[in-house]
Each structure stands twice: as structure tokens, then as C-alpha cells.
């Protein structure tokens, strides 16, 4: 297995899928000539040419609409959002067109499209550019939402997303692009809707995804030093949600913490907690706790920003609370 960055794992997935199926094309701001704002599409223009790697104007609603139209007539577009903050301008196309097309046409019109780009906060990009939108899209029937945490999952899930006949919202992490990890070289496809147990344990379940997986694993290490054996579940897919893995784990540990980068209100964790309380009520020994971003627009000040974000020690504290320690 090769060790790749998250960025290069995504690049590998794009390239392999473009080679595999000539209906697949990439479109977005700076994706071609500049090799991508975060260099995810490095080398693709050279290899596939300007018909399949398309630079667009700064007009998110427009190029997203073009993508939706292309998917309607049988192509398999990948629309890159420079960041998901900018996709707010395109959300009408994603929610009102892409998500509903198959449903409203009675299945006559397909929508094999991927919307991808970095979500969540990086460092000191302030309130308008530091937002996690998973729960926004996961709210919409008709959309699949995935958010990989590791290079291997990034590659495998992007390939699965491109092959999926439904619109997929694929949320990457700017702070993850340089993360290195082993990536299988063969045709590595990770099915959508399957969570991954990143660390097995028996005392408490920590559910997380994307950028909270790292802190969750760190918290688990710190807990292990205190004799607490935490299980870390990376959701990988927000919708569909792998309830089986979640319930099996909580059935074993009886205690659960759900971490996510976004805000608490109507967040991903709220859905997870709802599922657990309904399906695993008799397994619970403590109320489930959530660790989320602070309920404020992201502060620019770096100390305040740090205080507003999820980190390992907050997850560790929550885990101890649900263990009544």
C-alpha cells in the first residue's frame, strides 16, 4: 500500500474514475489551469484536456446548474466547490434541482452527480468561511452526504460517489488535505452508508466523522491511559446513516458521545442521538452527550477560535461524564 496525502488520494480517485468512464468530468473554479485551489485536480487538465476538466467563472449557481443539466442528459459531472461556504450560492440547484429530479420525474431523469469541496473551518478564516454544512444537506431527502476522515476513505468514497446514480454531497476537509495515510492501490471503493470502527473498545462509544475523527482517536488514547477503553466510530457517510454499526456499539458500551465540527442545533449528532434513544433505549446507562462547535459564528481571534472548536480534551471530558467519572 502506498502512503498518500488525503489530497493525492482524492486526485487518484478522480483520475481513476475519469479513466474508467468517459462520461465523468470535473468542473469548477480554478480546477483546470491552476490545478485546483487545493491542488486536488493536479495534472488532470494535462491528462484529460479542457473538455473534461472545465474552469468556470466565479458563478456557483450557474456552473452547478450546468452540472445538473449535464447529469440530466447522461453525463456524470463532478462539481468542485472551492469551499462549501460558496455553495450557499448554488444551494437552490443542489436542493431544488439535483435532490428532487429523480423523484419528480418518476425516475425518468437520472442525477449521477457529485458536489465536492472542503467544508468546515480551517484556521482563522473567520465566520463566513468556517462552517460545517453536513447537516444542511443531510436534511434533504434525495441527497447522499459523505465526509471522509482518512486518505483511504477519501479515495474509496469518492469513487463510490462518482459511480452512484444519486446526487452525492462530498465534504472534504481543508485541514485534512495534507493528512497522510495508507491507501490501497487497487480499485479501492468504500461503499456509501457504511461506518468504520476506527478503534475498537468496550467502555464508551465515540461517534464522529471527518475532522473530529482525529481528536476522537486522540481522546481515546488519553482515555486508555486512564484505563478507559473507548470505541471510535467514524460515520464516513452522514446519509444514509449506518445505524447498525452505531447500535451494535452502543449495545456493547452502554454509553455514547457524539462529536461533530458543526453547531449542535439540529446537527448530525442530533439525528444520531435520536436513533440511539429510540432503538437502544434499554442499552443506555447515561444520557448521550454531544461535543460540537460552539453556538456562535466562528470567531476570527485565534484563541477564541480554538475555544469554539471541538478538540480531544472536550471529547475526553464528555466520555468521562457519560461514564460517571
Amino acid at each position, binding site marked *: 500500500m502506498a502512503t498518500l496525502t488525503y489530497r493525492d488520494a482524492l486526485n487518484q480517485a478522480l483520475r481513476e474514475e475519469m479513466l474508467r468512464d468517459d462520461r465523468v468530468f470535473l468542473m469548477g473554479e480554478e480546477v483546470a489551469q491552476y490545478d485546483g485551489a487545493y491542488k486536488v485536480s493536479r495534472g488532470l487538465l494535462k491528462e484529460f484536456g479542457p473538455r473534461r476538466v472545465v474552469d468556470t467563472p466565479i458563478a456557483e449557481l450557474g456552473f452547478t446548474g450546468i452540472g445538473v443539466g449535464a447529469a440530466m442528459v447522461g453525463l456524470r459531472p463532478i462539481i468542485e466547490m472551492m469551499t462549501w461556504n460558496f455553495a450557499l450560492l448554488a444551494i437552490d440547484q443542489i436542493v431544488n434541482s439535483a435532490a428532487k429530479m429523480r423523484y419528480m420525474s418518476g425516475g425518468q431523469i437520472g442525477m449521477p452527480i457529485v458536489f465536492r469541496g472542503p467544508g468546515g473551518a480551517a484556521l482563522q478564516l473567520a465566520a463566513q468561511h468556517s462552517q460545517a454544512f453536513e447537516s444542511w444537506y443531510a436534511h434533504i431527502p434525495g441527497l447522499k452526504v459523505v465526509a471522509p476522515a482518512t486518505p483511504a476513505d477519501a479515495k474509496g468514497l469518492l469513487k463510490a460517489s462518482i459511480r452512484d446514480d444519486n446526487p452525492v454531497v462530498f465534504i472534504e476537509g481543508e485541514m485534512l488535505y495534507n493528512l497522510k495515510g495508507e491507501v490501497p492501490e487497487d480499485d479501492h471503493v468504500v461503499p456509501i452508508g457504511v461506518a468504520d470502527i476506527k478503534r475498537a473498545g468496550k467502555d464508551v462509544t465515540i461517534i464522529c466523522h471527518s475532522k473530529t475523527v482525529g481528536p476522537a482517536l486522540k481522546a481515546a488514547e488519553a482515555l486508555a491511559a486512564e484505563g478507559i477503553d473507548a470505541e471510535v466510530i467514524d460515520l464516513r457517510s452522514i446519509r444514509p446513516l449506518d445505524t447498525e454499526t452505531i447500535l451494535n456499539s452502543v449495545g456493547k458500551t*452502554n454509553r455514547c458521545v457524539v462529536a461533530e465540527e458543526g453547531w449542535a442545533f439540529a446537527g448530525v449528532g442530533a439525528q444520531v442521538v435520536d436513533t440511539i434513544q429510540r432503538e437502544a*433505549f*434499554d*442499552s*443506555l*446507562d*447515561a444520557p448521550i452527550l454531544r461535543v460540537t462547535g460552539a453556538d456562535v459564528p466562528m470567531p476570527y481571534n485565534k484563541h477564541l477560535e480554538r475555544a469554539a472548536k471541538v478538540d480531544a480534551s472536550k471529547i475526553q471530558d464528555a466520555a468521562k461524564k457519560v461514564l*460517571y467519572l
Partner: protein
Amino acid sequence: MATKIVMEALSPTMEEGRLVEWKKTEGDAVKVGDVLAEVETDKAVMELVARAAGTLLKQAVAAGTTVPVSNLVGWIGQPGEAIDGEAAAPAAPVAPTAAKAPAPAPAAPVSTAAPVPIAEGRVKASPLARKMAADKGVDLARVAGTGPEGRVVKRDVESAPVGGAAARPGFVAKQETGPAYTDTPLTQIRKTIAKRLVQSIGPIPTFYLTTEIDMERAADLREQMKAVNGDQGKISFNDLVVRAVGLSLAQHTACNAWWQDDSIRYWNEVHIGMAVAVPDGLITPVIRNADQKSLFEIGAESKVLAGKARERKLKPEEYTGSTFSISNLGMFDIEHFTAVINPPEAGILAIGSIAPVPAVVDGEVVPRKRMRVTMSCDHRVIDGATGAEFLKTLKLLLENPAALL
């Protein structure tokens, strides 16, 4: 529908209560929280309060009657309301907390707010604890909750034998893995015991329990093992005692505990400190998980530990963390003595010599090898009966030593 008034568990150990005096007479209006009657529990006279508002319709038992917990003592409802047929019959053993709030009476002309069930009477327990308690047949009302605001959680139900659940059958050491111990906050009764007894004999209010154990069969067992295995299979009386104490402690977790001032740590693991004389004093190396080890393992380990102790080579982890101790002066021909508790442990067992004494067996006076053991108990943790039950198990095991193999 009228609401039943039932005898509530007003102390952690209460099983029945004597209704000393009714404070409301039939026909009196009552509010939620009003004192209905005085009840003498096993410890004190307490107040039985109304869990619903309305009128005291009926006193089902007369003052002076002793009523089991959960059984009916009266009814509250709307004036003139009929009480359903089972009025005087003993109520089904519902938890006192399960008393239902009356549904708003359809005929009630005044628009008083409907009485709501009050939370104070409800046992707070996690869903898991509730399910486990139901499966195990543990009465949640009698379990001291260690979660926030006294919530009964998994660990409390797991350690429920302390609170009165059935003892584990058989002498098999428990194998399940779980937390090493459970810290149980002091119940009211334990707090009172601790306070009063420390005033009397402090700082550790110790009492002593002595029993004489017939060691004939244990001696036979030693001989048999020696005959079969030679010196390899040699086991000492001390090994037999350590193993028997380990198994007894696993059975009687209430004696395998630490006093921690604001809580009692009930250990689920059994670590036995073994007092060893050294030239300038004594030290207690620890045989860990003594209930899980065979006689041979215990024998080999105590030999190594005692040797290290005499050479002063014990590492701290080899002489700390014991949950109970044993002091054996039998080899010095001491018939009987009392040992000093090694805090925070709640008990220590003093082992005397094994000597032939005249005993009555089948109506004949015959010489029997007997051993006297005396347990020093910290009364804040261990009550007389609790300690006695432990010694009963210990005696049973040593007098039937095949159970130790």
C-alpha cells in the same frame, strides 16, 4: 379513580413498617406532601407523605399495624368516590413509586389543577439499570444510586448483592470482567453508624468475630495431595486459608471493601494482603485476584512474596492495593489473637494455631484438629451479621476443603 397509599420503603433496609399513628383522619383534605401517618421503620420513626391530592377516603389499616413495604395502607381520592374492589386485599407488590396520580375526576365541579405525580417518589435509574434490575429481580428502590442526583446506573445494579439481592450461588469465583470496584456513596444508615461508632471507639470502630473451624478434613486433604504429588504437590494450611478467604470474599463483597470517608469502595476484585514478619517489623505482600487462583498458584506466589519480603525486595506494587488482609500466627502456637485493621481495608482475619482439642462428634468426645480465627471488622463498613455470614462461608469451605480444589 382513587389513588392507593402504600407502605413506602422509608429506609434503605426497610422491609416492613409499623404504622404508629394516622395524622389524617378519613374525610380530611390532603395535599401532595402532607404527612399522612407516622411509620416506624427498622431504624426510626418516619413520615409517610401523600403522593396525590384529594381526600383521605379510607384508612385501610389501623394504627399499630405492621405492613410490608408496597402493601396498601389507604386511599386518596375525590369525596364520595368509590374505592375499587380490592380495597382491603393486600396490594400487588408494586413499587411505592408506581402509585398513579388520579385521573382528573370527570364529575369534579371545580377546576383545580390536576394533581401530577411527583418526582421525589420515583427512583431515578438509567434505562439499562432498570432493565438489568428487572432481569435480576433487584428492587431499584433499595439500590443506592451513584449517578448524578442518586441515579441508579449499571454499576449499582451489578453490585446490588450489597443492597440485598440474592447471593451468587455456589462457590465458583466470578469470571466476568468488569470494573475493579464500585464506590458506593454512604447511605443514611451507614453515615449514622459511622458517626455514632466513631464517637464510641475511634477512629476505626472495630469489633471482633471469632469462630472455631474443624481442620481435620483440611489436614487430610494436605496428606492426600502430598501422597499423590509428593513434595511438588505440597500445599500449606496457609494456602488453604488464603484460597478459602478469597472465595468467601468473592461471595461476600460487603466484606471486601475500603472505607473512604464519604463512600465505601466495594471491590469486585479480591486482593489479599498476607502479613509477613520481617526483622524490623511486618509487611503485607498482596496475592492479587486470590479468588481466581488455584491452591498451587497461591502456594507458589506466597512463597515468592514471603521470600522477597524477608529480603526486603518487594516492589511497591507487591505490597499495596490489598482489599482484605490475613495475619497468621498459627505457626507460633498462638491459639487465638486479634489483628489490627490495615486501613482503608475494612477487615483482617487473625489465624490461630491448628491443635487437637476435645470435640463432640456423634455424641462422643474425640480429639479433633481445630483452628480459631478472629475477624476484626470496621463497623462503619461491616455489620455483625455481614461479618458472621462471611465467616460462615469460610468455615464451610475449610471444613469441606474439596471445594477449594
